[in-house]
Every structure is written in C-alpha cells, then in structure tokens.
C-alpha cells in the first residue's frame, strides 16, 4: 500500500520520503508518478498511479460530501493515509503475531488441508454450495420478477395471488419450509432428490424477497419514465418490459447482489436434508482432524472468495446490461 502514499506525495509536490520503508514496488510506482509529473499542473489533483487506481476501484470514490481538497487538504489526507496505513499494518501484524506465538501457524496444524482427498472433499462441498446458489438464484430471480410484475399488474386477478404469495412466503422461516418439504411432501407421495429438497424451499422464500426488491426498484423510478412511455403509445406491459424493468434491475442491483449472498448463506441449512455443503464439511473436518479453528478458517476464506466472485460477476453483468446507473455510484457488496 506504500506506493499510494508516494504517489500522493509526489503529486502534491511534497518531498518524497516520509519515512516509509522503500520497496521495489514503491520505487517503481514513484518513478511512474514522477514521469507523469510534468503533465500535471501544480494545483491539479494528483494523477493516480496504477496501484492507486486499483485501490480507488476497491475503496470506491467518496460520495461527494467534500469539496475537492486543496493543496493543504491533500497534504492532510496524505498524512491521515500514512497514519491509518501504519495503524492497519500494526493491527494485521498483531493478529499474525498472536497466531504465530501460539503455534497456530505451525505447518502441522494445516497439513490436512494439503492432502488431495481432503481438498477434494472440500471442493465437492464447495461445488454443492455453488450449485445450490446458482440453481436457486437462476430460478428465484425470474420467478421474483414475474411476481413483482404480478404485484404491479392492474388486474386484481394477478395482483392478489402475487401479493398473498409474497407476504406469506416472506413470513415463513426458511427452516420451517425445509422441514415442511422434508416431512410434508413424502406424506403427499412426492419424493424429491436431496438437492431439490434444499433448492425449492430456498427458491420459494427468495423469490418473494426478490419480488419485493424488484417492486421497490420499480416504485423508486421517476413516474415521468412510465408516463413518457405511455405518451409514446406503449401499453402497460411493453412499457414495463422496455422502459421500467431494465432501469429497475439496474437500480436494484446492489440489493439483488446482497440478497444473492444471503441466498448462498441459506445453503448452510443443507445439513437438515443431509446435503453436504461447505459448513457441514467444516464440521466434519473439524471433528475428524480435531482442528476446529483451522477447518472453519479455511471454510470462511472459501465463503469470502465465493461471495466476492458472486458480487464481481453480478457487477460485471450489471455493466453489461447497460452500465452503472446514472444517479448512483457502483453497487456495493
């Protein structure tokens, strides 16, 4: 993270030492910034280096609560950056040190995770989690959109069933629904495979939530949009399809993504139907190898990676669907 500091310092015409440990990386970055220097007028904001740009992308731009900083403001920000960086580094070091001091980083504690059968087991569990998420999401999203359309329809014939469905399904705890599928369906003579015993309850609850998200997105659109569409001679459904829904989807992208993350976490209920997913895998591994903390740490990292990938894909899809919405910034996860 040091290069950021150098860049800022170079850009704002400050001496380029500030006591940070030099590394090849930071030297490179500083050089990069200083070659760019002549093109930058003294008062203009610093031209971001590649790393700064990357961090900006991760950190996101600020929300326009501030005036663009002047030279003194930039200096203050640079100092604050340095201080906060040091503090964060100290925090990270303290954590690692504590773990190391108590032998938790010892290779023996982690050896089991290097064995192929165990990795294979974890990957199987991961794939199960991903599959549940993808399949549930792929069914629940369109279903939610249909339900939202139903709730927004003008005929009570469509509106009422959709409204009742959404209200009821959001009120039923997912676990109860899973139990209902587990105990209820066989009594009715329906036998579902394990996978679908988990997927359908997830789909039914999440479709209701997705419907609400879509609907709030539609309602948040300026009414002028619909009116303009009608004025152009489009009927209700065409206006919905061509004008309202595309905008609503973009508007609600952040909410949709966080609901998808929640959906992924819903899959941890898989143990109820003895479906092997990640959390279950952690529990089994912890019991098998007596390394509860290590097993859960590994699984936690996997959850973070998967959810980040999920959010990244969603963001990419959103951009493909027509770029970031004009009024708001990037979606957050």
């Amino acid at each position, binding site marked *: 993270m040091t290069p950021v500091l150098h860049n800022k310092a170079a850009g704002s015409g400050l001496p380029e030492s500030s006591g940070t440990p030099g590394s090849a990386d930071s030297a490179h970055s500083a050089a990069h910034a200083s070659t760019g220097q002549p093109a930058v007028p003294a008062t203009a904001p610093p031209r971001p280096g590649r790393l700064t740009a990357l*961090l900006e992308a991760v950190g996101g731009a600020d929300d326009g*609560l501030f005036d663009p900083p002047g030279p003194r403001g930039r200096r203050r920000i640079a100092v604050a950056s340095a201080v906060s960086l040091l503090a964060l580094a100290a925090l990270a070091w303290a954590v690692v040190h504590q773990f190391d001091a108590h032998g938790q980083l010892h290779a023996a504690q982690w050896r089991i995770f290097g064995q192929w059968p165990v990795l294979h087991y974890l990957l199987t569990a991961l794939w199960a989690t991903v599959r549940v998420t993808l399949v549930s999401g792929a069914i629940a999203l369109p279903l939610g959109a249909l339900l939202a359309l139903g709730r927004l329809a003008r005929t009570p014939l469509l509106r009422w069933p959709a409204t009742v469905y959404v209200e009821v399904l959001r009120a039923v705890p997912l676990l109860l629904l899973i139990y209902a599928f587990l105990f209820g369906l066989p009594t009715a003579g329906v036998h579902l495979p394990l996978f679908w015993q988990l997927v359908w309850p997830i789909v039914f609850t999440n479709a209701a939530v997705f419907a609400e998200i879509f609907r709030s997105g539609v309602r948040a659109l300026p009414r002028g949009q619909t009116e303009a569409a009608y004025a152009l001679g489009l009927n209700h459904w065409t206006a919905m399809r061509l004008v309202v829904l595309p905008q609503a989807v973009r508007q609600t992208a952040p909410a949709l993504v966080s609901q998808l993350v929640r959906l992924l976490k819903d899959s941890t209920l898989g143990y109820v139907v003895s479906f092997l997913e990640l*959390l279950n895998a952690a529990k089994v591994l912890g019991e098998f190898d007596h390394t*509860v*903390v290590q097993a859960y740490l590994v699984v936690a990292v996997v959850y973070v990676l998967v959810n980040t990938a999920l959010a990244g894909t969603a963001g990419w899809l959103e951009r493909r669907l027509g770029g970031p919405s004009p009024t708001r910034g990037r979606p*957050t996860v």
Partner: protein
Amino acid sequence: MGLIADHIGVFGSGLRVSAEISACTFVLAALLGAVLAVCRISPVLPLRVFSRLYVAVLRSIPLLVLLTLFVFGLPEIGIVYSLQWTAVTAMSLYWAAFFCEVLRAGVRAVPRGQIEAARALGLGFGQTLRLVVLPQAARSIIQPAASLLIAVTLNSSLAAAVGVTQELTGQTELLDQQYAQPLVTFGAAAVAYVAIALCVGRLAGFLDRKMAVTR
C-alpha cells in the same frame, strides 16, 4: 402446552439473556458500524479500502462460522473471556458490517442538492454533516436499523450453538432434550422470537411516522 406453562420461568430467563445479548450486540455494532461508515465516506483512501473490505468480508461469512472461530479461536491465541461476551464480540463485528451499509445508504439517500445547497450557503463539512445530512439521514435509517435489530435478536439464537446455553434457544434445547417434544418447545420459542420481531417493527413504524417529513 402444559409443558410450556410449567417451564415459563425457564423461558423467561432465557428471554432475558437473549435480550441482553441482542442489546449489547446492537449497541456495539451500531458504534463500530458508525466508525466504519465514517471511514467509508472519508477522503482517506486506506480507510475507505479497509472499510469496504471489512464489509465485504464480514458479510460473506456465515455468522455461525464467525462465532465458532471466535469461541474456539481466541483461546488458541491466548485470549479467554466469558463465552457470552465472546459471542457478543463476534456478533457485533458481524452486524457492524451491515450497520455500516445502512448508515451509508442513509447518508446517500440525502439528495445531493441538499449538500450542494449547504455548501453554497457557506457551511463547512462538519456543519453540512451535522445540520443538513444527519437529520435527514436519521429518518431514512430508522426502518433499516429496526430491521437490523430484529435480525440481531433472531440471530442471537446462534449463540446457543457455541455454548451460550443460558439464552432462549439453549434453554429450549434443554427442555426439548428432557421431554422429546420439539414441536411444542421450539414452537413456543419461535412464537417468542416472532413476538419480539413484531414489537420492534411496530416501534420502528411509530418512530418513523413521528419523524416523517415530506420532501
């Protein structure tokens, strides 16, 4: 049902511990969430990056995983304190990520024109935040914050999975073990949780109406 009536005291004490855990978690998460939100909108890039990563990571991990890591992980690195507070720590850190997002959304919900107008009037950053942004943000925060409180309360039941057996779910588990009547015992506990959720929701609705302004 007589089973529930006979053990109403058990449910009462369980409910008290659950309320304690939830309240502590909620307050701590709110404080930490506020700090994170300030980091998130600050002009200091490392803080923004940290806050954003924190939120992304903490929201990705199932709460049960986080709880297990804290309860069994902290003693491994030499930090042991009461189980209940360990659980509160983990849950506060988890919910702070959600709180940060709620607060940030609240600030973002204030129309940009308001901020620009405040600046045009010559108000500084602090004044803008205090006099213009926060009062308006507070109103739009009430509802999501209430939802969060409900979520915190309901999810406090996860503490039972890591040995905080004094709380409602843990007590219910003990009763169920003794009488083998999961439908009755857990049904009663579920009713208690739903009742809490309803009360909090009503309170929030009331506050919301009181503070409502038309823009």
